């Protein structure tokens, strides 16, 4: 303690040394801030967590049959079933797995077409398993996609992990807004292509129906009327023949449900030779309709077959037409691939479009495109995790500023001095150095990237309070030393620092130990590291930097009082 007291005393006596402390602190502060642009510390909202389960979404192109979807899914199952850590695999064809948090926002509950399937993969318990689920997904993803996506051309396989925090549609979501459907579609496909070539992005998908060939049967009303039929009859028979209908029901005592009596053409007789128009026509010619006179009319006689393109689904968001392009990140933060992809987009689209960047909002990465030829406008809007991240960081930033103001006001009320309150605030703000450097160090020691996350920010906000407490106790003590013991300012600060060093260090150690277990948690690791490293920084700041500022501050010139608040002896400075 004596050593620290002498150390502080010597610093306070020398102008050069004082300046050196201030300069060093400033350098450390800016150096740590520089770790963001130099990507030494990477930011992400929430890191992945190891779980006992993940799921695989299989999407074959729109218009594919359930058999085709099944083929792709079986391929996935074949690979997954040989994994040692997989305990069971559930395949749900034509529907989603029982709803979970991830599926909630990904529209899993709405799935009910033949071209979708979902596989639930349950793993061994995460405590006994060496490989975390996110690494397993990372390892399996390329193998599965490479082998199974080619089973049915145009299929898309996605690996869905349980979100660590609130669920989003996908890590990277780009909404292509625009009234011109074909053009918007073109842009979306280009965007998807850019995503596919961006490092770190996987599971890229354009959330739009694929356009496929279909046949339109145009009823010839005149012929229908002349042969004594009706259009409705034509429709009904067609549906009955190929899709089938429950024409009656039977109630049963033994069955839990009614038994429908289902009428349909036999599988053999309804199957077409191939996808060609001739095959369809020949099938339709053998399907007869009975008219009112009891005569048989072949169906093909009353309709014309025309090959057309299917009408893709139209998607709106907030009243404007848009197409989503989504991608997941492969163990990296979505921020960096997103910015890389955005740069490529600006370069690529600038040929045909005027590009205008968005202003400073939580949609700050949006791009406004105007077609150079037609003047049509499009908007590329980033949503998904990016939007949530920006919103969260904005709100937490706001919370942080509010916290600063509140603490400042509280201190001004307590000390009735702006400069003393300023010192405390400045001192507590500097714990940011520790937070950033701590993340850099943590990143060096972990095999995966250790991100600065939203929880790190929460840790930092909490640290503000903790380090202001240190400075507060220090100033209080110095004040009473000067007022009650008539000590001179320099000596009083040195003594106070030396005396308060122990409780400051003790509470710091308590916080560090208390947060040690937090640091190992995937989600709250950021908070743990922020608290640990921030506290260390806070101790140095309050024991060296704050005393220097105190010595410089005029507001700290307390006069010895005649009648002292603090009784003699309560502050024991034994010499």
């Amino acid at each position: 303690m004596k050593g620290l007291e002498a150390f502080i005393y010597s610093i306070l006596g020398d102008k050069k040394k004082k300046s050196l402390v201030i300069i060093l602190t400033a350098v450390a502060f800016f150096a740590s801030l520089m770790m963001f642009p130099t990507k030494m510390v990477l930011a992400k909202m929430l890191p992945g967590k190891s779980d006992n389960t993940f799921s695989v979404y299989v999407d074959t192109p729109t218009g594919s049959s359930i058999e085709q979807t099944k083929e792709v899914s079986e391929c996935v199952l074949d690979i997954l079933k040989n994994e040692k850590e997989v305990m069971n695999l559930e395949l749900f064809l034509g529907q989603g797995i029982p709803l979970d948090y991830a599926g909630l926002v990904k529209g899993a509950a709405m799935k009910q077409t033949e071209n979708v399937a979902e596989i639930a993969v349950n793993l061994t318990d995460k405590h006994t398993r060496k490989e975390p689920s996110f690494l397993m997904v990372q390892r399996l993803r390329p193998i599965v996609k490479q082998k199974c996506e080619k089973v049915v051309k145009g299929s898309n396989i996605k690996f869905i992990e349980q979100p660590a925090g609130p669920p989003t549609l996908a890590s990277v979501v780009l909404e292509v807004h625009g009234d011109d459907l074909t053009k918007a579609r073109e842009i979306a496909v280009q965007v998807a292509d850019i995503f596919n070539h961006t490092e770190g992005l996987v599971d890229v998908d354009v959330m739009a129906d694929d356009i496929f060939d279909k046949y339109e049967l145009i009823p010839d009303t005149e012929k229908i009327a002349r042969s004594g039929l009706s259009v409705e009859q034509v429709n009904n028979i067609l549906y009955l023949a190929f899709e089938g209908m429950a024409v009656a029901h039977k109630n049963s005592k033994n069955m839990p449900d009614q038994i429908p009596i289902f009428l349909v053409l036999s599988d053999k007789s309804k199957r077409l030779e191939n996808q060609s128009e001739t095959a369809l026509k020949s099938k339709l010619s053998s399907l007869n309709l009975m008219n009112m006179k009891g005569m048989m009319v072949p169906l093909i006689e009353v309709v014309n077959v025309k090959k057309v393109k299917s009408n893709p689904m139209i998607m709106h968001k907030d009243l404007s037409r848009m197409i989503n392009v989504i991608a997941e990140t492969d163990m990296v933060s979505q921020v960096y691939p997103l910015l890389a992809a955005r740069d490529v987009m600006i370069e690529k689209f600038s040929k045909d479009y005027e590009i205008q960047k968005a202003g400073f909002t939580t949609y700050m990465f949006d791009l406004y495109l105007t077609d150079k030829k037609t003047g049509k406008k499009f908007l590329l809007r980033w949503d998904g995790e990016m939007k949530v991240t920006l919103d969260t960081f904005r709100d937490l930033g706001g919370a942080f500023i509010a916290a600063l103001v509140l603490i400042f006001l509280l201190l001004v009320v307590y000390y009735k001095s702006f400069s003393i309150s300023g010192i405390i605030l400045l001192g507590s703000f500097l714990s940011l150095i520790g937070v950033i450097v701590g993340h850099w160090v943590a990143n060096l020691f972990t095999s995966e990237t250790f991100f600065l996350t939203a929880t790190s920010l929460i840790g930092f906000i909490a640290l503000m309070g903790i380090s202001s407490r240190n400075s507060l106790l220090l100033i209080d003590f110095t004040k009473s030393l000067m007022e009650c013991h008539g000590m001179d300012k320099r000596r009083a600060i040195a003594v106070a620092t030396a005396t308060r060093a122990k409780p400051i260090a003790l509470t710091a150690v308590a916080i560090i130990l208390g947060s040690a277990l937090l640091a190992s948690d995937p989600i709250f690791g950021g908070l743990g590291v922020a608290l640990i490293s921030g506290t260390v920084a806070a101790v140095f700041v309050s024991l060296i930097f704050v005393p220097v500022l105190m010595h410089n501050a005029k507001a700290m010139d307390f006069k010895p009082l005649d009648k002292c608040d603090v009784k003699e002896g309560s502050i024991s400075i034994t010499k």
Partner: protein
Amino acid sequence: MALEQYEVKDYAGKLAKGFLRNPLTSVLGAFLILMGYLSLSIMPREEDPQIAISGGAVIVAMPGATPREIENIIINPLERKFREVKGIEHIYGQAFNNYGIVSVMYYIGEDREDSNLKMYDKVMQNMDILPKGAMQPLIKPFDIDIDIPIMTVAFYAKDKSVDDVRLHEIVRHLQQKINAVQNVAKTTLKGNRKAQYNIEVDLNKLSAYHLSLGQIMKAVESVAVDVPDVKGRTKSKKLVIFGVKNAIESVDDVNNIIVAQYMGSPIYLRDVAKVREGVDIQNFKTASILFKKDRDAKMSDEKSQVTLTIAKLAGTNAVFVADDVMELLKEYDAELAKEGVGYVVTRNYGERANEAVNELMNHLVITIVIIALMLVFALGWKESLIVTFTVPAILAVTLFIAYLSGQTINRITLFAFLLSLGLLVDAAIIVIENIHRHLHAHDVDSKDMDELLVEATDEIGAPTNVATLAIILTMVPMAFVGGMMGSFMKPIPLNVPVALIASLFVAYIFTPYLSLKLLKKPTHKHHHHKGGK
């Protein structure tokens, strides 16, 4: 007693003084810890905190319309109407062939019942803007509690004798029993195949007999009718009940339906079609499972399965519900085995929540022990013991308050505790450190123990209060963070300030009280310690 009465200036000293010699202090301590323990065992446990997401979808079908038509006459008008509702964050519209869906997402935290009502109301008010030919709109609000099952159980047939229909029948029976378990809300079946009589018409035979599909449909419809019994009256005023029996009792009855007469001889359905008792062949939504007993076993073959999903009522304890369901399943073990049906529990959030909570509880205990050990070295074992006692007391108070305010124990709540752990021992450490310093000061003999304790507590009261208030102030704005993340993190701003306030009270009340019981004035008065050492 005292030579000179110390004048108490701060709440800290008042509290210390008031409770120092009060016999009820120990009772209060025991009571707090008991309340905390009770709250811990009663409070509903879950893995992630509840996020109030409200929203829903309106589905309007209009057969025969193309996406462009649906967009113009259904999606656009509905979207415009939803703009009139306050609290909606996003409106999504999807126009498909034959139908359109408009879904709305409210801002996170909007009241769910209100939101649902507003949505329902808006659609009902504007039924007249829907086009002719559109069907009655379906309104489906989200309900996370009910929609996300906490348990899923996959049932599969162990041998060939159990077909899909029988499996469905058995699981349907079990579903009824499980739905009766306390706090179980929605149960659904996935991948189930229902019994159905399939009439598969051969197109070639149809043309050979000169028949149309319409005729067959009419023939079947005319036979399969259910009519209620009729009442006849006798002359002696009595009732005679009689009715037409349903003509279809089995597949054979369907087979024997006469679809037409040809040259006087009947054509039976069996002549032109294959009628089979089977499953719903038009339903392509199937499910299958592959599983193994333990890590090193071999994966079974793919088996078709029926998954039973079980959701719980909002605000109930997932752990208890899952346990009850598991117990019920155990009861039916023998019966299911006899039927040749096996099952695999493929999801159990109750267990997961319990594990997550218990793991974090362990972390809490370990952390407390580590801090206690650290204090033994820094302050001495008695002082360490005092500080260590305050931790469970503070946590107990916080838990109890959380329970009273209707929160649940989840990962985030426990992280709030872990986060505050480092902070909340501070107050106690500062008090005990000051007591320690006073006890080793040179004028210790001139003071009475009681007064010394009160004075030591009172002295650091003001700065500690302000400092703790500062930390609380940093946490409060976090409560106003919006969106999903804000809701997710909410337990932190809700619980940390409570824990910190509790830490002040506990430090001021129990630290001097326990010090009085455990600490003694040093007898070796000739030895002078240095300040704070």
